[in-house]
């Protein structure tokens, strides 16, 4: 092998390594820059409004609807549930720092003792089981209402997921990243195909929303659902749309995906719960 061949192979290896092993910080910069460069008239924080940041007609309708938000009753119920003591007299507040107020922006977080990602909904259920209560079903219902109330106490606080650095954190982050960019289902679509490559374009009558800001406003009250749903419930909808089988709530793959996506939105303000079509 001559010197030129060796040099070319070395260059190729270096370029491959730089693509697959970008640090989470570098990934975040590239991810956020992609959107701010593609939509230079939209501020970073506005991406938390999803499709309503891109489509003025849809935004006008959404703002009119928000004069009387459809989720108000469920949000109040979430607050009541959050403040209702368990049978042992303790409450959700006893399980969380700052009594569970203004903490949404720190979830999901990595639990290094258990070597796993913990989402807010998982933490809510662990709070219940640690206090001898039955866990709630994931994705919708009471758990989404409680999570929505907790999110509402964080309104305006910036998403602040600690940068993955340890081996366990990086493994979870990379798994979530790979899930996001992998094509799946019979229609062979990845999350990125819709929410990065085709963001702002139409899929039938719907404008495809930016992935930047997706996690800021969940749980979301969707008119289609007529109830709150967590981010993982939305993952289910996307999977069904591409004809992939949805995963169980709080499965490792979903938690890792939520971890990756939320880290990509670091610095954006929490603006949930929100309503969507």
């Amino acid at each position: 092998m001559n010197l030129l061949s060796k040099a070319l192979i070395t260059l190729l290896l270096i370029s491959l390594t730089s693509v697959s092993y970008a640090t989470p910080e570098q990934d975040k910069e590239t991810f956020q820059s992609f959107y701010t460069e593609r939509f230079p008239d939209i501020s970073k924080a506005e991406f938390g409004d999803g499709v309503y940041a891109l489509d003025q007609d849809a935004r006008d309708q959404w703002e009119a609807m928000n004069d009387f938000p459809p989720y108000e009753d469920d949000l109040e119920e979430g607050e009541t549930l959050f403040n209702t003591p368990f049978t042992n007299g303790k409450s959700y507040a006893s399980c969380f720092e700052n009594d569970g107020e203004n903490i949404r922006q720190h979830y999901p977080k990595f639990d290094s003792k258990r070597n796993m990602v913990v989402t807010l909904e998982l933490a809510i259920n662990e709070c219940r089981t640690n206090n001898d209560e039955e866990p709630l079903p994931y994705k919708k219902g009471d758990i989404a209402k409680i999570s929505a109330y907790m999110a509402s106490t964080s309104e305006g606080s910036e998403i602040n997921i600690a940068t993955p650095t340890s081996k366990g954190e990086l493994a979870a982050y990379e798994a979530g990243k790979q899930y996001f960019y992998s094509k799946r289902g019979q229609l062979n679509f990845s999350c990125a195909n819709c929410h990065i490559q085709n963001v702002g374009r139409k899929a039938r009558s719907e404008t495809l929303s930016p992935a930047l800001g997706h996690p800021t406003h969940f749980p979301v009250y969707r008119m289609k659902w007529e109830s709150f749903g967590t981010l993982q419930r939305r993952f289910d909808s996307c999977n069904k749309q591409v004809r992939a089988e949805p995963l169980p709530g709080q499965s490792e793959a979903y938690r890792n995906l939520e971890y990756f996506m939320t880290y990509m939105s670091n610095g954006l303000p929490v603006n949930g719960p929100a309503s969507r079509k």
Partner: protein
Amino acid sequence: MKLKALSLIIIFGFFCTLANATTATDAAKSIQLAEDLWDKTKSAGHEWNTIKPLVAQAKQALESKDFATAIELSNKASQQAELALIQAEHEKTNWLNNLPK
């Protein structure tokens, strides 16, 4: 003459039963193969939601003794599972092409 005819009927009936039994076994085998491949797609994290209903319909056809339909549906399920496995294998590296540039 009557005896010959009776023998022929018995032999014909025997082969018909045998053919039917073989088809039932084939259908069951075909469904098992589809289920095995389907399990592999789950392990690979690339399960398609189109496979489960095909397997369920194939099982229903088997119960109704509609063996040809059972085989046809389970074959479809197997084909889709194989494609899902190809997708899983392909995406082990292809996902890098979807990164924002």
